[in-house]
């Protein structure tokens, strides 16, 4: 019992179940195939990033630039293909390289200055936000890139990032598949590989880890690069879904990812959490976001509702951890 309660994701699982039941019963559309497909899709985009951010948080760091980075990658592909006529696949690689570069920059600054990652990535966040807007405006004259659908090769890449397939009468977006795969992969990496072991160790006690030979610096680089890679993937999934991207894409989402991870049981202080928890956190967020639409609530209350949910979730998690006698 205590063992079960000690799992990071228990609180989130209970909450997810509760929210699912609530909206299933109180609205008619929530459980329809189209409804399920929508909230799953909504969750998946938050979820992919939330899982990456959760890994980073378990490793003891933050990334506030993750949201803006999803925009950056989309914009790079958009500009490279529509403005420079670059091949879609090349553009994809270029965007990935740029994202990884930013991730590496974050990691390098954090590991070599020992500054808190909150401040370092806050700076990167501002820089990316500015660049997204200014460079896009400079190169395209507008703040949104359109006409991607007409780019050659777009449809091929769309199979990977923007397609959907029928399942149980639902029109399942491919991003849901990515989400499930990545959550599974992240869980596997965390629990069943050396790197995962090191992530927990580095977040739990960096000094001790270094002493027994864990390459702390490399682990942190790996984590920031993972977040950057996830931001690229989400950027692509969004881009190929709607075939357009705006300069403001992703701003404000960094908090959502952190919220999902925390709701899923990650400790802000590192060393504790799970990928499944973060995925559940995103599921809760996605269900709530779309459930409110199904329930036809006034959307003005949305933020207040989400804030209350966050508060409730951390208090429940706290209670669960206290129950389990874990004082760390």
């Amino acid at each position, binding site marked *: 019992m205590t063992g079960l309660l000690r799992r990071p994701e228990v609180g989130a699982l209970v909450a997810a179940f509760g929210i699912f039941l609530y909206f299933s019963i109180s609205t*008619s*559309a929530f459980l329809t195939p189209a409804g399920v*497909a929508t909230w799953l899709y909504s969750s998946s985009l938050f979820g992919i990033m939330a899982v990456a951010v959760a890994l980073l948080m378990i490793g003891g760091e933050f990334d506030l630039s993750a949201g803006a980075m999803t925009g950056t990658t989309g914009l790079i592909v958009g500009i490279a293909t529509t403005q420079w006529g670059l091949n879609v696949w090349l553009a994809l690689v270029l965007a990935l390289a740029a994202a990884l570069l930013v991730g590496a920059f974050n990691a390098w600054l954090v590991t070599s200055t020992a500054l808190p990652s909150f401040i370092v990535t806050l700076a990167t966040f501002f820089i990316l936000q500015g660049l*997204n807007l200014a460079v896009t405006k400079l190169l395209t004259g507008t*703040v949104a890139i359109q006409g991607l659908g007409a780019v050659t090769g777009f449809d091929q890449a769309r199979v990977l990032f923007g397609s959907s397939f029928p399942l149980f009468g639902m029109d399942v977006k491919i991003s849901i598949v990515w989400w499930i795969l990545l959550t599974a992969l992240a869980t596997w990496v965390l629990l069943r590989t050396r790197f995962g072991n090191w992530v927990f160790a580095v977040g739990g006690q960096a000094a001790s880890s270094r002493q027994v030979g864990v390459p702390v610096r490399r682990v942190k680089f790996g984590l920031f690069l993972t977040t950057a890679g996830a931001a690229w993937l989400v950027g692509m999934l*969004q881009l190929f879904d*709607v075939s*357009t991207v705006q300069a403001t894409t992703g701003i404000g989402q960094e908090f959502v990812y952190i919220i999902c991870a925390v709701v899923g049981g990650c400790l802000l202080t590192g060393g504790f959490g799970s990928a499944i928890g973060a995925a559940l956190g995103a599921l809760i967020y996605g269900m709530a976001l779309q459930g409110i639409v199904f329930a036809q609530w006034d959307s003005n209350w949305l933020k207040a509702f989400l804030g209350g949910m966050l508060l409730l979730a951390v208090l429940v998690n706290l209670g669960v951890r206290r129950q389990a006698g874990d004082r760390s």
Partner: protein
Amino acid sequence: SANGSSATGSDAASAGKTTIAMVTHGNPGDAFWDVVKSGAEQAGKDLGATVTYQGDGDPVRQSQLIDSAVATHPDGLIVSMANPDGVKASIEKAVAAGIPVITINSGLEESLAFGAQTHVGQSEYAAGQAAGKRLAKAGATKVICVIHEAGNTGLEDRCRGAADGLGSPVANVQVDIANLADAQNTIKSTLLADPTIDGVLSLNPGIAVAASQAITDAGSHAQLATFDVSKDVTTLIEAGSILFAVDQQPYSQGYLPVVFLTLQKRNGDVVGGGQPVFSGPGFVTKENAAQVATYAAHGTR
């Protein structure tokens, strides 16, 4: 003005209550979209229909909101298209599901192609163009356009339109709607930095109030025009501080499509006949400001 407890809705004859979903690209708290929402809700009240409203400036999330709305099988769907590509798939899905769609505000060009029945309103670009022309007529040559939400496509379109209407380049100045006092500073600084500026175009009534004060503080002689009206804006127009306000009549952009979709459900009417219905732009000037003021106070202008 519209009476909330009008009897038209109570005897709605058709099967069940009419529900109409509206999904726009307006972020929560946006003054313009709030009036659109008010219009739609009032129409719902007047006609005995349920109107739901959602908005998100991000095309991915806007299309998700559309999908969710479609999943509830409304009797009609109203969508604004700041980024037509972004919502295309979702709109087509709605059309395929047999839900009548009306587009509003921007997206006039793509509306019919996406399968919408008609378009209500007028593009931000066209409204901007009209404002630009009017400023030119008032003698402005060097105009700044104040963008209060960085990267907002609708606002960028208005400024682009204004430049084209004016016939000379317009410099965009970025401020933050979340900090009006500092927005005022930035406008003032801009005017101080370049005293030759003789026109300011603001895109939000709150910013207009701040801009009017900034012009006074900077000792500038720039003429001020704005988008959208509010109580304070009408007062300032009457006082001559603001030259005119472009009124896209957002209330109609919200009200009319609800009426159209309700009529269609009850009566099979297809208003517009494939042609767009223009909701504006109206101009609020010294002449009609007093009249508009009463409506603005109620959040309907």
